[in-house]
C-alpha cells in the first residue's frame, strides 16, 4: 500500500480543489493525442483528429478527457485504496480496451504539465513531486489487473 504524508495529502487536495475537471481533463487528453500521436490508435471512433486544432476542439476528446479526470477524482478520494478503486477499470482497460499501461504513464506526465501551466509558480517542486507520485500510483493501479 502506498504511504502518503500529511503534506502530500495537503498538496493533492489544495491543487485538486482549484482544478476544473472538465477543462483540465480535456486539455490533458488533447495534449496526449497531440504530443504522442500514436495514442490516437485508441480513438478511431472520435472523428477528426487530423491536427492539433481539430483535436483540441473535438467534442468527443473533450468529453472523454472530462470522464478520465473525473475518475482521477475518485482516486483522490480513495488514496488509501487505489488498487481497489481501480480494480474494474483495470480489467476493462486490459480485457476490453487493450490499452498498453505505458499510456497511463504518458497521460500522467501530461497531466502534471497541464497542472504546472495552470498553477505556475505555485506548482512548487514539492507539489510536482507529489503529483508525479500520484499519477505514478494511479497508473500502477490501473495496470494492476492486467494479465
Amino acid at each position, binding site marked *: 500500500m502506498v504511504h502518503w504524508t500529511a503534506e502530500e495529502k495537503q498538496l493533492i487536495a489544495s491543487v485538486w480543489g482549484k482544478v476544473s475537471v472538465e477543462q483540465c481533463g480535456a486539455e490533458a487528453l488533447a495534449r496526449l493525442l497531440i*504530443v504522442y500521436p500514436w495514442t490516437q490508435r485508441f480513438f478511431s471512433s472520435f472523428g477528426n483528429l487530423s491536427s492539433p486544432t481539430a483535436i*483540441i476542439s473535438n467534442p468527443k476528446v473533450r468529453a472523454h478527457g472530462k470522464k478520465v479526470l473525473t475518475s482521477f477524482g475518485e482516486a483522490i478520494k480513495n488514496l488509501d485504496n487505489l488498487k481497489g478503486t481501480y480494480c474494474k477499470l483495470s480489467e476493462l482497460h486490459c480485457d476490453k480496451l487493450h490499452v498498453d499501461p505505458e499510456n497511463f504513464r504518458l497521460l500522467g506526465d501530461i497531466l502534471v*504539465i497541464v497542472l*504546472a501551466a495552470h498553477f505556475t509558480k505555485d*506548482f512548487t*517542486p514539492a507539489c*510536482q513531486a507529489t503529483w508525479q507520485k500520484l499519477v505514478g500510483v494511479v497508473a500502477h493501479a490501473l495496470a494492476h489487473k492486467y494479465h
Partner: protein
Amino acid sequence: MVLSAGDKANVKAAFSKIGGQAEEYGADALERMFTTYPQTKTYFPHFDLGKGSAQVKGHGKKVAAALVEAANNIDDIAGALSKLSDLHAQKLRVDPVNFKLLGQCFLVVVATRNPSLLTPEVHASLDKFLCAVGTVLTAKYR
C-alpha cells in the same frame, strides 16, 4: 523520430523567448528532478543538493547551455553535442532512462514560468527535441 521543419521552428522560437533565463530554467529543472525523482541524486554524491545550492545552479547553467547549443544547431544535434555524447558514454554513464526524467522536469519548468509559450504544438516539438538530445547523449553508450 525526426524533427520536422515546424518542430525546429518551434524549438528555436521557444529558446529565443526563454533567452537569458535559460540558466534559471536549467537550475529549476535540476532541482525539480532531484525532488521528484530522488534516484537521480545518485549521480551527484559529490554535490550539495540542498535548496539554492550553488553547485546545482552551476550545473543547471551547463545543462541549459547544452540545450541552447542543440537548439542553435538543430540541424545537427549529434555534431553540436558530440563531445558531450563522448563524455556521457565514457565517463558519466548516466542511465538513459534519466534523460526522460530531466526532460519532463524541463517541460514542467517551461509550463510554470512561461505557460503561454507551451502551446500543445510547442509542447510536442519541445518533447521531441528533448528526446532527440537524450538520444544523442546516449548514442555512443554501446
